[in-house]
C-alpha cells in the first residue's frame, strides 16, 4: 500500500502535469456527458411532441386495445381464432403464422442451399454452371420482385376451383384458392402417445451414443450410431401407432359445385414459401461453398493416408471443419429469412406485420404496435442467435 502511494507520488513529481482539459479521461467524461444530454433532450422532445400529437388526434395510449374485440377475419389461423377474438389474440395468430413460414422456409432453404452449394463445387461443368447461374441470378434480384413473380405471375395461372388440378387422383386439389390436401385425423390419445414415444427414443439415442463413444474409445470398435438413432426415433412412435390399432383417418378434400372444402394451404403461403426458400437458398449455397473450400486439401489427403474411407473422410474430417466456417453466417441467413417473411404483407399472408398493420389502421396506436413488432422480432433474433451460438461453441475449434 505504502510503496504504491509513494510510487505514484514519485511519478507525479517527475511528469510535468498536463492541463486537465488535455487529460483523455476527463475529455472522455465530457464527451459522454454531452452525448447523454443531447440524447436526453432529443428523447424528451420526441416524447412530449408525441404525447401532444396523440392527444390532439384523440388516439388512445397504452396496451388496453389488446383486449378489444378485433373486427376482422383471418385467412390463416393455426390456433383458435373465434369470431369475437381480441386484437391480442389476432397478434398471437400472426406470431404463430410468422414462425410457421419461417421454420418451414428455413428447413427447405437449408436443404436446397446445401445441394446448390455442393453443386457449385461439382466437377461436372453443366451442373456447376447451372448452380452458378442460379446463385448469380437470384442474389441480384429483389426478394419482393420474386415474391410478386410467384404470386401474381405464376400462381395466378392456377385454375378456378371448378377445374382444379388433381395431381394425385381425388386426394389433392390445386386451384386458385389454394392447395387442398387430405387432413390427417388421429384417434384421441395416439398423438400424445407417439410424442411420448418420440421423447423416449431421443433419450435412448443419446444414451446409445454415449455408450458407443465409450466403447470406441476403449476398444476401437465403431458402432452405427446414426442408423440406430434414426431407427429409434422413427421406429418407436411407429410402434406405438401400430400397437394402438393404427387408428388413422385421412379426411380427403371434397369438391363442391363452386369450391373445395378440406384442409387448405393458401396460395399466399405457397408464394411466400417459394420466394423465401429460393432466395435464401442462393445465399446459403455461397456460405456452404465457402465453408467447404475453407477446409484445406491437405486435410483430405491426410485423412485418406490414415486409411479413412471417402465417406469417413467427409463425415469425420471435412464436414466438421466446414461447419465451423458455415455456422455463423448461416445463423444470420436464418435470421434474414425470418425477418424477410414480413414481406408477407405484400401478398396478404396474415403474418405478424400484416395483422399488426391491420390493428394499426383500426386503432391508430402506431407506437404500441411498432413496439410489439420490434419486441417480437428482437426476441426471435436473440433466441435464434443464442441457440446457434450454443451450437457454434460445440463445434468450435478447441485450442490449447
Amino acid at each position: 500500500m505504502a510503496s504504491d502511494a509513494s510510487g505514484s507520488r514519485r511519478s507525479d513529481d517527475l511528469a510535468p502535469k498536463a492541463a486537465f482539459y488535455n487529460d483523455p479521461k476527463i475529455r472522455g467524461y465530457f464527451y459522454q456527458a454531452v452525448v447523454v444530454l443531447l440524447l436526453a433532450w432529443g428523447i424528451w422532445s420526441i416524447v412530449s411532441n408525441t404525447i401532444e400529437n396523440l392527444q390532439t388526434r384523440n388516439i388512445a395510449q397504452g396496451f388496453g386495445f389488446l383486449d378489444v374485440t378485433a373486427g376482422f377475419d383471418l385467412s390463416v389461423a393455426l390456433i383458435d381464432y373465434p369470431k369475437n377474438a381480441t386484437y391480442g389474440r389476432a397478434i398471437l395468430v400472426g406470431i404463430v403464422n410468422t414462425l410457421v413460414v419461417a421454420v418451414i422456409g428455413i428447413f427447405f432453404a437449408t436443404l436446397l442451399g446445401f445441394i446448390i452449394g455442393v453443386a457449385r463445387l461439382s466437377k461436372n461443368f453443366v451442373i456447376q454452371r447451372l448452380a452458378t447461374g442460379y446463385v448469380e441470378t437470384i442474389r441480384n434480384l429483389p426478394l419482393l420482385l420474386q415474391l410478386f413473380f410467384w404470386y401474381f405471375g405464376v400462381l395466378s395461372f392456377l385454375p378456378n376451383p371448378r377445374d382444379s388440378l388433381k395431381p394425385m387422383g381425388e386426394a389433392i386439389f390445386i386451384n386458385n384458392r389454394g392447395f387442398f390436401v387430405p387432413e390427417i385425423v388421429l384417434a384421441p390419445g395416439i398423438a400424445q402417445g407417439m410424442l411420448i414415444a418420440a421423447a423416449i427414443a431421443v433419450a435412448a439415442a443419446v444414451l446409445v451414443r454415449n455408450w458407443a463413444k465409450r466403447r470406441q474409445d476403449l476398444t476401437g470398435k465403431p458402432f452405427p450410431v446414426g442408423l440406430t438413432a434414426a431407427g429409434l426415433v422413427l421406429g418407436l412412435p411407429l410402434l406405438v401407432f401400430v400397437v394402438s390399432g393404427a387408428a388413422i383417418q385421412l379426411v380427403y378434400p371434397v369438391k363442391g359445385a363452386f369450391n373445395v372444402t378440406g384442409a387448405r394451404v393458401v396460395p399466399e403461403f405457397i408464394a411466400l414459401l417459394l420466394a423465401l426458400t429460393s432466395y435464401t437458398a442462393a445465399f446459403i449455397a455461397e456460405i456452404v461453398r465457402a465453408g467447404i473450400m475453407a477446409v484445406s486439401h491437405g486435410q483430405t489427403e491426410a485423412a485418406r493416408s490414415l486409411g479413412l474411407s471417402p465417406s469417413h473422410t467427409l463425415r469425420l474430417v471435412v464436414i466438421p471443419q466446414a461447419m465451423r466456417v458455415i455456422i455463423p453466417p448461416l445463423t444470420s441467413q436464418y435470421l434474414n429469412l425470418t425477418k424477410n417473411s414480413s414481406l408477407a404483407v405484400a401478398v396478404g399472408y396474415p403474418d405478424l406485420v400484416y395483422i399488426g398493420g391491420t390493428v394499426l389502421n383500426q386503432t391508430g396506436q402506431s407506437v404500441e404496435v411498432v413496439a410489439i413488432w420490434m419486441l417480437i422480432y428482437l426476441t426471435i433474433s436473440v433466441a435464434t442467435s443464442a441457440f446457434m451460438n450454443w451450437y457454434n461453441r460445440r463445434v468450435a475449434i478447441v485450442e490449447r
Partner: protein
Amino acid sequence: MSDTSVDPNRAFVRAEMLTARPAPGLTVGPIAWMRENLASSPGNFLLTLVGILILYKLIPPVIEFAFIKATWTGTNGADCRIAGFGACWPYVVDYLDEFAYGRYPFAERWRVNTVFVLFFALMVPLMIPKLPHKGWNALAFFGIFPVVAFFLLVGSPTLGLPIVETRNWGGLLVTLVVAVTGIVASLPMGILLALGRRSKMPIIRLLSVVYIEVWRGVPLITVLFMANTMLPLFVHEGQSIDNLLRALIGVAFFSAAYMAEVVRGGLQAIPKGQYEGAMALGLSYWKMMLLIILPQALKLVIPGIVNTFIGLFKDTTLVAIVGLFDLLGMIQATRANPVWAAPTTMLTGYLVAAIVYFTFCYGMSRYSQYMERRLATGHKR
C-alpha cells in the same frame, strides 16, 4: 560426383533428344475436356443429363415467352392475348415514361433527365481509376450534385422552377433517389457507429451497440411502417414530414446499422501496431482514424460495403409497401389498369424490373471485384 563423360565402350548413345509426340487424342482437345468435365464416370454423365434436362426445361420457354410468342405492337391487352403465351411488349412501351418518372409532370421531365445525366456524368469518371482530378470530382458528386439535384427535382419558385410534390415522383427516379440517399447517408453514419462501438468510452459504446443491434434485429418493413406512422408524431404539431422523406430516413437509419457492422469488421482486422504507430507519432484520435486506420480498414471491407449497397438497392423495393411508387411499385400499380389486362402483362412487367435490377446489382458486384483486385496491396498472404 557423377561422371558425365560418355563411356567409349557403349555401343549406342543417343546424341539428341527425340521430338515429343503429341499426347494421345483422348487426353487433349474438346473430346478430352468433355470426357473430363461431363462424363468422367457414369454418375457424372447422369448429372450432365440432368443438367441438360433442366436447361431444356428452362431456356426455351423463356426465349419463347420473351421473343417468339411475344406481341410487339398493339394498343391494349386484347392485342396481347392473340399471339399466345408471350410477353406483351407494347404495354412496356406505353408505360415506359411512368416506369422512368412516375407521375412527374410531363413539362418538367427535363429536370429529371438533367439529374440522371449529371449523376452518371459525375459518377462514371469517379469510378474509372485512371482519370485525374478525383478530389474535385468527388466534391462535385458528393457536395454540389445533391444540392443541384434537390433543387432540380423538388423545384424552387425563386429559380423559376415550379414545385413538384414528391407524391408525383415515381419509377426509376424514386428507386435511385432512395438508393443513392441511403448509400450516401449510411456510409458516414455507419463509420461513426463502428467507431463508437470500438470506443473506450462506455456510454458511447453502449449506445452504439444498442442502436446497431436493435436496427439489425428488426425487418426493414417494420422500420418503414414506423417511419411512416411515427415520424409525423415526433415533430411539432402543424409541421409535417414528406412521405418520401420518411422512407428516406427509415432506409438511412436502417442501412447505417448494417454498414457499421461491415466497417467494424475492417477496424478489427487492422493490426494493433498501426494504432500504436499512429499514436506514437502524436496524431490525435481523428487524425489517426482518418489518415491511418480508416483508409486501410475501408479498403479491406470493400466487398462487404458493396454487398450492403446491393442489399440496400434491392431493399428499396420495399418502399412500395408503404405507398411510394418506385420502379416495382409502379409496375405493380399498372395491374389496376383494365386497358392492359392480359394474362402475360404482369409477367412482362416483372421481366423488365428483373432486367433493370439485375443490371444495377450485377454491375455493382462486378465493379467491387475489379476494385478489390486493384486495391490489393499486399495484405493477402
